[in-house]
C-alpha cells in the first residue's frame, strides 16, 4: 500500500474512525492514487500539497465526514492568569528602582565626601561623580549595607522581570508579539514557524 495511505490509515485509527469507514476511505484513496500513477502521474496529482501532510489530510477528511470530532479550539485563557506576570513585573521594576536609588544616594554621598576632601587638600570644590563609577563602588566598600542592598535589589529585579516575561509569554498563548511558535508534523518531520 502507498506510504501516504498507510499514514492516513494510522491517523484514522488514532482518531477512532470506525473500521468500515476507514476501509472505505482507504480503498477510494488507494484506487485514485493508483489510477494517477497508471497515467504517469504521482500522488501529488491527486492530492496536491496535501500529499506532504497525510495526518492533516486524514484528519480533515474524517472531520468532514462527521466520523470524528473537530480538534478542540485553544482553551480560553483565564483572565486571572495575567496577574502573576503583572505582579512579578511590578516587583522587578520596584527592585530596580530601589537599586537605582541606592546607587544615586551612594553617588551623592561620595560626591559630598570628595568635595570635603578637595576642600581640605585645596583642590577644586566641584567634582562630577557618575553613579556606578569606581568612586561609587569604592564608596560602597565603606558602606557594605548599601552594597548588599544594591546587589539584592539587582537580583530581585532581574528575577522579577524574568518571571514576568515567562508568565507573560505563557499567558499570550506561546506567542511573542504577532509571532506564534507552532509545531507541524509533515512528511519532512516536525518544524517550527
Amino acid at each position: 500500500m502507498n506510504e501516504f495511505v498507510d499514514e492516513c490509515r494510522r491517523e484514522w485509527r488514532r482518531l477512532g474512525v470506525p473500521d468500515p469507514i476507514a476501509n472505505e476511505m482507504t480503498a477510494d484513496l488507494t484506487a485514485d492514487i493508483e489510477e494517477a500513477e497508471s497515467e504517469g502521474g504521482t500522488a501529488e496529482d491527486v492530492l496536491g500539497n496535501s500529499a506532504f501532510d497525510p495526518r492533516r489530510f486524514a484528519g480533515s477528511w474524517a472531520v468532514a465526514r462527521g466520523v470524528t470530532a473537530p480538534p478542540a479550539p485553544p482553551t480560553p485563557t483565564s483572565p486571572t492568569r495575567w496577574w502573576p506576570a503583572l505582579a512579578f513585573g511590578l516587583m522587578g521594576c520596584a527592585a530596580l528602582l530601589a537599586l537605582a536609588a541606592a546607587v544615586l544616594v551612594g553617588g551623592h554621598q561620595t560626591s559630598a565626601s570628595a568635595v570635603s576632601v578637595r576642600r581640605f587638600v585645596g583642590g577644586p570644590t566641584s567634582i562630577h561623580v557618575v553613579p556606578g563609577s569606581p568612586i561609587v563602588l569604592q564608596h560602597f566598600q565603606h558602606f557594605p549595607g548599601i552594597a548588599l542592598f544594591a546587589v539584592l535589589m539587582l537580583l530581585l529585579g532581574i528575577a522579577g522581570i524574568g518571571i514576568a516575561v515567562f508568565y507573560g509569554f505563557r499567558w499570550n498563548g506561546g506567542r511573542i508579539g504577532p509571532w506564534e511558535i507552532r509545531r507541524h508534523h509533515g512528511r519532512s518531520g516536525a518544524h517550527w514557524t
Partner: protein
Amino acid sequence: MAVMTEGPAYGYEMTKRLRARGLSTVGEGSIYPLLGRLERDGLVETRRAASNGGPPRKYYSLSPAGERALETGRREWQLARDAVDGALDLVKAEVGP
C-alpha cells in the same frame, strides 16, 4: 457540485474534470473532505460501482437537495459577478481612451 451535473463521478475523476476547466487547485486534496461534507449534509448521493477495469469506486451524484443548493449558489455567484463586473466597467470607463 456543478461538475457532477455531467454525470456521477468518483473523487479523482472530479479532480480531472476541474483540472480540465483550469481549476486544478480547487480539486487537489481538498476534494475528498469537500465530498465528505456534501455527503454528510445530504447534498450528494453515493453508490459503489466498478470503474473501467479498476477496483469498485464510490460515485457521487447530486441529490435533489444538492441540485437546489447548486441552483441557489449559481444565482448568488451571478449576482456577485455582475456586481464586480459593474464596478470594473466603471474603472475601465475612467481610465479608457
